[in-house]
């Protein structure tokens, strides 16, 4: 078997490790069933292996490290959806996939099937270092400075069953990007890492700490500007050691690292980390160039060959077919190779469930990845799918293939590209349903010509203050709240996760569910009526301030 493009190829040692983890988990399940482990003891252990108990069943969250899979793995996910779930899966904003109808007794068998294709559910939940996320265009984008995947893989390995950091005060999320255009929401993570080229070929890392969403949204602050590669792991160990020792454990809402950083200040945090580093045996923690090279060697590099006229062929096809042209405009991104292009496949059909894909669609995506993108698939933090290396002259064939399974929606980055958490339809912590409101908004703005007219506008929906749908970071954010058993939504505007990260401002009192869609339509109308040429929603909002939008939203209420 050849090495997959885009992610680390396991060897026998890695596979033995996975088998050991499955055996361990199976033992834990058996001890739960015979009563040796109480539910209070079992819960953190099952969460550490991605297994939640939701409203109707168990949910299994499978790790997709740095969001990249190969077609074999994707096919396996489709099979699992078919055999053990109800024929669909849900892609999440943390680049993972969740299955909603899992039986505890089936999980060891599911984990064994996943291990056949080098996949697992390790640390996709729990108070440990979670699945590491990375730029969805890694290794493909023209604007990239450093391909972050090798270091994302290093972080995945280093954090796997870390002996010291598996019982942290709270979950811990790390994201890494190597592009000046932040596509990972680095400053909304416990640790955000931006890589750039350093001297002598090795990258250096800018490290942000203490970002996060949830109940208390905080934008991460810069801890270090230039960490050398050899000290990357030592630095992360030191940051986590300070957090593990001093993070609050008396109140889960105050247990994230962001609260500690806010409480003592980023300068004091930096001093504490430096004090750790001064005492550590740095040689022991050194990330050697040999180790990096060994891991890099297990990533295949796609052989990018395109005919000289690829670009011209695509240009002609776009002129001939306005529908195709519209899709290319919203759903593609510039590749570093002029004969190739990055295609984003929307999992947001108008009126559909954001991020859901049926097993048939999953299987088809795997086939298309084989045919058009070296068998490589990426999951984005906006719950879409990316084929990273598509030859320009073959893009239209891909688009036609996608249309056959209802995956050719032209709405990436537009108002129909809604991010929503599972909400009260599944989630035990929810206050309100997120999916139905996403569906109604999707249906309201289903016309892709209208979406193109509205331009860049992101709606994010969370069913409770935990903010899994990133509502604080949405250009328009919706937060579900419970008012005496009824569903209400609080609106925010002006959030953004990209460069210039900002937390949205609350517009006013929460609206009843059945008035929310109309209020958002009025917000959008307000923007369309008052924008100046070339302005996006955010531009107009910045120029006019919130007041006109607040008035529009609450006009008839």
């Amino acid at each position: 078997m050849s090495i997959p493009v885009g992610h680390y190829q396991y060897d026998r040692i890695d596979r033995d490790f996975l088998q050991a983890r499955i055996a361990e988990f199976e033992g834990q399940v058996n001890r739960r069933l015979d009563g040796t482990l109480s539910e209070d003891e079992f819960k953190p252990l099952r969460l550490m292996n991605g297994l939640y108990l939701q409203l109707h069943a168990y949910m299994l969250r499978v790790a997709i490290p740095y969001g990249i899979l190969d077609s074999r793995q994707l096919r396996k996910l489709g099979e699992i959806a078919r055999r053990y779930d109800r024929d669909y899966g849900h892609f999440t904003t943390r680049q993972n996939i969740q299955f909603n109808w899992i039986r505890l007794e089936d999980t060891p068998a599911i984990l064994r099937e996943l291990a056949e294709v080098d996949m697992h559910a390790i640390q996709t939940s729990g108070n440990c270092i979670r699945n590491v996320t990375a730029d969805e265009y890694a290794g493909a984008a023209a604007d990239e400075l450093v391909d972050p995947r090798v270091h994302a893989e290093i972080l995945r390995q280093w954090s796997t069953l870390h002996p010291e950091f598996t019982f942290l005060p709270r979950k811990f999320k790390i994201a890494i990007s190597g592009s000046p255009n932040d596509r990972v929401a680095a400053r909304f993570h416990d640790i955000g890492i931006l890589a750039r080229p350093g001297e002598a070929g090795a990258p250096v890392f800018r490290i942000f700490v203490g970002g996060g969403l949830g109940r208390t949204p905080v934008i991460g602050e810069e801890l270090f500007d230039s960490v050398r590669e050899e000290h990357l792991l030592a630095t992360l160990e030191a940051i986590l050691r300070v957090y593990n020792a001093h993070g609050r454990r008396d109140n889960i809402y105050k247990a994230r690292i962001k609260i500690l950083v806010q409480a003592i200040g980023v300068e004091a945090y930096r001093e504490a980390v430096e004090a750790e580093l001064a005492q550590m045996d740095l040689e022991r923690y050194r990330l050697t160039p040999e180790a990096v090279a060994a891991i890099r060697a297990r990533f295949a590099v796609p052989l990018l060959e395109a005919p000289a006229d690829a670009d011209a062929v695509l240009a002609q096809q776009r002129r001939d077919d306005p529908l195709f042209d519209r899709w290319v405009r919203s759903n593609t991104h510039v590749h570093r190779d002029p004969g190739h292009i990055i295609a984003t496949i929307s999992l947001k059909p108008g009126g559909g469930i954001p991020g859901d894909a049926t097993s048939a669609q999953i299987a088809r995506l795997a086939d298309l990845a084989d045919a058009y993108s070296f068998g490589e698939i990426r999951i984005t933090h906006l719950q879409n799918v990316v084929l990273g290396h598509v030859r320009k002259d073959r893009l239209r064939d891909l688009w036609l293939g996608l249309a056959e399974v209802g995956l050719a929606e032209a709405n990436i980055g537009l108002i129909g590209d809604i991010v929503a958490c599972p909400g009260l339809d599944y989630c035990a912590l929810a206050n309100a349903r997120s999916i139905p409101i996403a569906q109604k908004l999707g249906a309201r703005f289903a016309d892709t010509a209208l979406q193109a007219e509205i331009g860049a506008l992101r709606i994010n929906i969370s069913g409770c203050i935990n903010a899994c749908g990133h509502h604080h970071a949405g250009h328009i954010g919706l937060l579900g709240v419970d008012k005496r058993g009824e569903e209400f939504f609080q609106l925010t505007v002006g959030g953004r996760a990209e460069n210039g990260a900002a937390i949205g401002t609350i517009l006013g009192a929460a609206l009843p569910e059945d008035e929310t869609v109309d209020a958002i339509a009025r917000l959008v109308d307000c923007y369309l009526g008052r924008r100046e040429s070339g302005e996006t929603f955010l531009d107009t909002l910045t120029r006019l301030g919130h007041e006109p939008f607040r008035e529009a939203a609450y006009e008839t209420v």
Partner: protein
Amino acid sequence: MKRPVRLEPGQKLVLTANRLLDGRTVWWGADGTWDSHIGRAAILDADEAEVALLRATEQAQRDGVVGVYDTAVQDVVPPEPVTVREKIRAHGPTVHPEFAVETEQ
């Protein structure tokens, strides 16, 4: 921690939990067994619910359920939960009518 139960007129209580083996939502029946259909739930007044809750919690491990609690329902046949959350637990996700609990065997 036990919340004081405040029932509106016309409301009663049922006990609910999730099954340990498959996680499915279940409701406590008059015969002490757990069933996935709320229609078979025992409808209890506040005092009965307190006794039943204690017993069901004690026996949770043996009965293979987790997270036993009581919740208010309209006292009709079949009983209908009061909150959106419990309605969804009783009937299934609103976004997948094909998975309605009622239509399962």
